C-alpha cells in the first residue's frame, strides 16, 4: 500500500482549524471587529471544507479494486488513562462514513457560515455567533472522527453545549432561553443513557480485553470501535452470561448507547426539544438541527452497528422507534403553522427514516446501512437548503407563521425556485437527491422482510410530500397575507449563493455513489439500482401527497377550515403535538420539582438542619436545666457533696467488685 497522503495523516487539522478559529474569534478578534471575526470564522471553516474534500478525494482513491474502503487510524494519542490496559485515546478514524460526514459537515457548515454573514448582519453578538458556530463545527468534526466511544461522547457533549448556546443566541428572548435549556436537558438525559452504555460495555470489554493476549490487542483500547466491533469481541460479549432485568450485557449496552443517539436525533419520546430548538437563528437550525448534529444519533448507531446487529434485539428497538418517529412526526408536521417547526418535524420524520433503515439492516441484508448513510448524506443538503430558504423568507417577512406569508414566489423568485427544488427533493421526486436515498431505504425494508416498516415508510413518504407542499403552497402561492409579505424583498447574494450551491447538491447528490463506498464492513455487497417495485409506489404516493396539498392549500383556506372542523379534537390533539410538551412539563415541574426537589430542600432545611439546631437547642436547654441546680443555697450544695460522696462509694463498690478482683 502506498504511503498515505499528507491530509490523510493530518486529518486532525480539519477539526483543529475551527477550534483555533473559535479561540481566536472569541478571545482576540471579537473585541476588535465583529465583521473581521465573522469573515475569519468563515474562512477557517472554508479551509476545513477544502481540506476535507481533498481528504475525501484521496480517501476514495485508496480503494483497491474489488475491495471496500479501508478503515484508517492515521493519528491517535493517549488522552485519558484510567488504569493499566484501560485508557482513552483521541484520534482520527477515517472510514467511509466518517469521511462522508466530514464532507457533509464542513460543506454545510461553510455554506451556513457564508449565509450567516448576510443573515446575521447587524445583529448584536455577531462575533459571538460565529465563535459558537466554529466551536460547533469543531465538536461535530471531532465526533465524526472519533475512534472510540469516549471521544465520541466528549464531542457529543460539546456539540450539545454549542447547540445550547446557539439556540439561546437571542438570550434576551425568554422563549429562546427556555428552548435552549430544554434542548440541553433533554439531550443530557439521553446522554446519561449513552454514558451508562459506555460504563456497561466498558466494564465487560475491559474484562475481555484483559483476558486476551497482548498481541491480540496491540495498539487498541477496550473502548475503541476497532476493538468493540471485532467479531471475536462481540462473540465474547454476547456470550457473557450476565443479565440485568433479563437483558444481556450486549443488548443492554447497545440500547443504552442508542438512548444517547435517540436523544440527539430526537427520536420519540425524546423528540420534544427539536421543534423548540427552532428558536435559534435559522442558519443554526439549518446547520445543527437539520443537517449535522441531529444525525449524530444515526451516525452513532451506524458506528456501533456491529454491536447492534450482534445483539439483534437492540436493532429491533432502533427500527421500531425509528419507524414510529417517522410516522408520528409526519402526522404532526401536517398541522403546524410555523414554517420552521414544520421543517423540524420533517427533520424528525426523516431521522426516523434513517434510523429504521439501520434497524432493518443486518449482516445478511446490509443494504439498510448503506441506505441510511446515503439518506443522511442527501438529507443534509436538501434539508439545509429548506432551512436556509425558510430563513430567507423569514428574513423578508419577519414572521415564522406561514399564514403571514403567501405569494412570495413573485417577490422572491430565486428563493422560491431553490425552495421548490428542496421540497421536491424531500418529497422524493426523481431525479432529485431524496428520491434515490429514500428509494434505497424502502427497498432495504422490503428486501429484509420488514413489510410493516416498508408500509410505514411508504405512507410517510406520501405524507412528507403532502406537508412539505402544504407549506410551499401557503408560503409562495396565493395572495400575500400580511403587510410584510407585500413588501418582501429577495435576499442578498451572500445568502442566495450558498443556497444555490445547496440546490445543486440537492439535485445532484443522488448521483454520487455513496452506497457503493459506504458498505457495512464484513457483509456482502447488496447494492442494487433503482428497484421499480419500490420506486413506483413511492413516487405515486408522493405525487398523491403533492396533489392533496394542492387541493387543500393551493386555493382558498375554506377547504382546510372545513376539514379541520370535521376532524375536531383529533386535529387539536395533533396540532398540540399530542400534548407531549405538557406531559414533560407536568412530569418535571409538578412531579420532580414538587415531589422530589422541593421536599428535599424542605427536608434539608427542616429535618437535617433541624436536627443540628436541635442538638444545639438540646445542649443549651440541658445547660439551663443543669444551671438551675445552682440554687444559691449553700446547704443544697452541701447535700450534693454528701450525696456525691455516697454515690462515689456505691460506684466504687460496684466497679471494683465486678471489674476488679
Amino acid at each position, binding site marked *: 500500500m502506498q504511503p498515505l497522503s499528507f491530509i490523510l495523516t493530518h486529518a486532525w487539522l480539519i477539526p483543529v482549524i475551527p477550534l483555533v478559529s473559535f479561540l481566536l474569534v472569541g478571545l482576540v478578534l471579537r473585541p476588535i471587529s465583529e465583521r473581521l471575526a465573522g469573515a475569519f470564522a468563515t474562512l477557517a471553516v472554508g479551509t476545513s471544507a477544502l481540506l476535507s474534500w481533498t481528504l475525501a478525494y484521496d480517501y476514495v482513491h485508496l480503494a483497491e479494486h474489488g475491495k471496500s474502503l479501508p478503515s484508517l487510524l492515521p493519528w491517535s494519542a493517549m488522552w485519558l488513562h484510567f488504569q493499566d490496559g484501560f485508557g482513552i485515546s483521541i484520534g482520527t478514524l477515517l472510514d467511509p462514513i466518517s469521511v462522508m460526514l466530514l464532507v457533509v459537515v464542513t460543506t454545510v457548515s461553510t455554506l451556513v457560515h457564508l449565509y450567516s454573514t448576510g443573515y446575521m448582519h447587524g445583529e448584536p453578538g455577531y462575533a459571538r455567533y460565529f465563535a459558537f458556530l466554529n466551536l460547533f463545527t469543531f465538536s461535530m468534526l471531532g465526533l465524526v472522527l472519533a475512534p472510540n466511544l469516549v471521544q465520541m461522547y466528549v464531542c457529543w457533549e460539546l456539540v450539545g453545549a454549542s447547540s445550547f448556546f446557539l439556540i439561546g443566541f437571542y438570550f434576551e428572548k425568554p422563549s429562546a432561553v427556555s428552548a435552549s435549556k430544554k434542548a440541553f436537558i433533554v439531550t443530557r438525559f439521553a446522554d446519561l443513557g449513552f454514558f451508562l452504555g459506555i460504563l456497561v460495555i466498558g466494564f465487560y470489554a475491559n474484562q475481555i480485553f484483559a483476558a486476551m493476549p497482548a498481541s491480540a490487542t496491540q495498539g487498541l483500547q477496550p473502548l475503541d470501535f476497532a476493538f468493540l466491533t471485532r467479531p471475536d469481541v462481540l462473540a465474547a460479549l454476547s456470550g457473557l452470561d450476565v443479565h440485568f432485568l433479563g437483558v444481556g450485557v450486549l443488548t443492554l449496552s447497545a440500547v443504552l448507547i442508542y438512548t444517547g443517539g435517540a436523544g440527539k436525533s430526537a427520536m420519540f419520546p425524546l423528540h420534544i426539544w427539536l421543534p423548540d430548538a427552532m428558536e435559534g437563528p435559522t442558519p443554526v437550525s439549518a446547520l445543527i438541527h437539520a443537517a449535522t448534529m441531529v444525525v449524530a444519533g444515526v451516525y452513532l448507531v451506524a458506528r456501533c452497528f456491529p454491536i447492534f446487529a450482534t445483539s439483534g434485539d437492540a436493532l429491533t428497538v432502533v427500527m421500531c422507534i425509528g419507524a414510529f418517529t417517522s410516522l408520528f412526526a409526519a402526522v404532526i408536521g401536517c398541522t403546524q403553522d410555523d414554517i420552521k417547526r414544520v421543517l423540524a418535524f420533517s427533520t424528525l420524520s426523516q431521522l426516523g427514516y434513517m434510523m429504521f433503515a439501520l434497524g432493518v439492516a443486518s449482516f445478511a441484508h446490509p443494504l439498510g446501512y448503506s441506505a441510511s448513510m446515503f439518506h443522511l448524506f442527501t438529507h443534509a443538503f436538501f434539508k439545509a437548503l429548506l432551512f436556509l430558504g425558510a430563513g430567507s423568507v423569514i428574513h423578508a417577512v419577519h414572521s415564522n407563521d406561514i399564514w403571514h406569508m403567501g405569494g412570495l414566489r413573485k417577490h422572491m423568485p430565486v428563493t422560491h425556485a431553490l425552495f421548490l427544488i428542496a421540497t421536491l427533493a424531500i418529497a422524493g421526486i426523481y431525479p432529485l437527491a431524496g428520491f434515490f436515498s429514500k428509494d434505497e431505504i424502502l427497498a432495504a425494508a422490503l428486501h429484509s422482510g420488514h413489510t410493516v416498516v416498508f408500509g410505514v415508510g411508504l405512507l410517510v413518504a406520501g405524507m412528507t410530500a403532502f406537508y412539505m407542499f402544504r407549506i410551499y403552497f401557503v408560503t409562495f402561492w396565493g395572495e400575500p397575507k400580511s403587510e410584510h409579505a407585500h413588501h418582501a424583498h429577495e435576499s442578498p447574494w451572500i445568502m442566495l449563493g450558498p443556497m444555490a450551491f445547496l440546490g445543486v447538491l440537492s439535485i445532484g447528490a443522488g448521483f454520487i455513489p455513496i452506497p457503493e463506498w459506504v458498505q457495512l464492513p464484513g457483509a456482502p455487497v447488496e447494492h442494487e439500482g433503482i428497484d421499480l417495485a419500490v420506486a413506483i409506489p413511492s413516487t405515486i404516493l408522493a405525487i398523491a401527497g403533492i396533489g392533496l396539498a394542492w387541493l387543500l392549500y393551493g386555493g382558498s383556506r375554506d377547504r382546510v377550515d372545513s376539514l379541520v372542523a370535521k376532524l375536531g379534537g383529533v386535529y387539536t390533539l395533533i396540532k398540540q403535538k399530542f400534548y407531549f410538551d405538557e406531559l414533560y412539563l407536568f412530569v418535571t415541574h409538578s412531579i420532580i420539582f414538587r415531589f422530589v426537589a422541593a421536599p428535599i430542600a424542605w427536608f434539608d432545611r427542616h429535618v437535617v438542619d433541624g436536627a443540628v439546631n436541635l442538638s444545639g437547642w438540646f445542649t443549651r436547654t440541658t445547660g439551663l436545666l443543669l*444551671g438551675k441546680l445552682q*440554687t*444559691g*443555697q*449553700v446547704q443544697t450544695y*452541701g447535700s450534693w457533696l*454528701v450525696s456525691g460522696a455516697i454515690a462515689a462509694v456505691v460506684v466504687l463498690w460496684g466497679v471494683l467488685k465486678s471489674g476488679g478482683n
Partner: protein
Amino acid sequence: MAEFLTTHGLTLQHWLVLTSALFSIGLYGMLTRRNAVGVLMSLELCLNAAAVNFVLFNRYLAPTNLGGAERLDGAVMTIFVIAVAAAEVVVGMAIFVAMYAERRTVDVTRLDALKD
C-alpha cells in the same frame, strides 16, 4: 483505762458507732441549720468525730504494728485537727461577722444573691 473499757465490753466497734453517730449528726446539722453559727457548731461535731476516730485507732490498732515516734501519730493528728478546727472556726466567724455587718442576718438560706 483500757482495762476498764474492755472489761465493760466496750470494743472498738462501739466507739466507732459513737463517732459515726456524732459525725452523722454533725453532717445533718451542717446541712439543715439555718443559723450560720449552728452550721459551724455542727462542723465542730464532724471534725471532732473524726478526731476521736484517730485517737481510737491509735489506741486500739496502731501500736501493735508500729514502733518509735509513729506510735503516737493518731494522737498527734487529733491535736492538729483540733487546732485546724479552731482556725476554721475563727475564719468562719470572721466572715460571719463581716456578713452580718453587711446583711444583718446570718441565716444561710437567705444567702442566695449568687446563683444562676
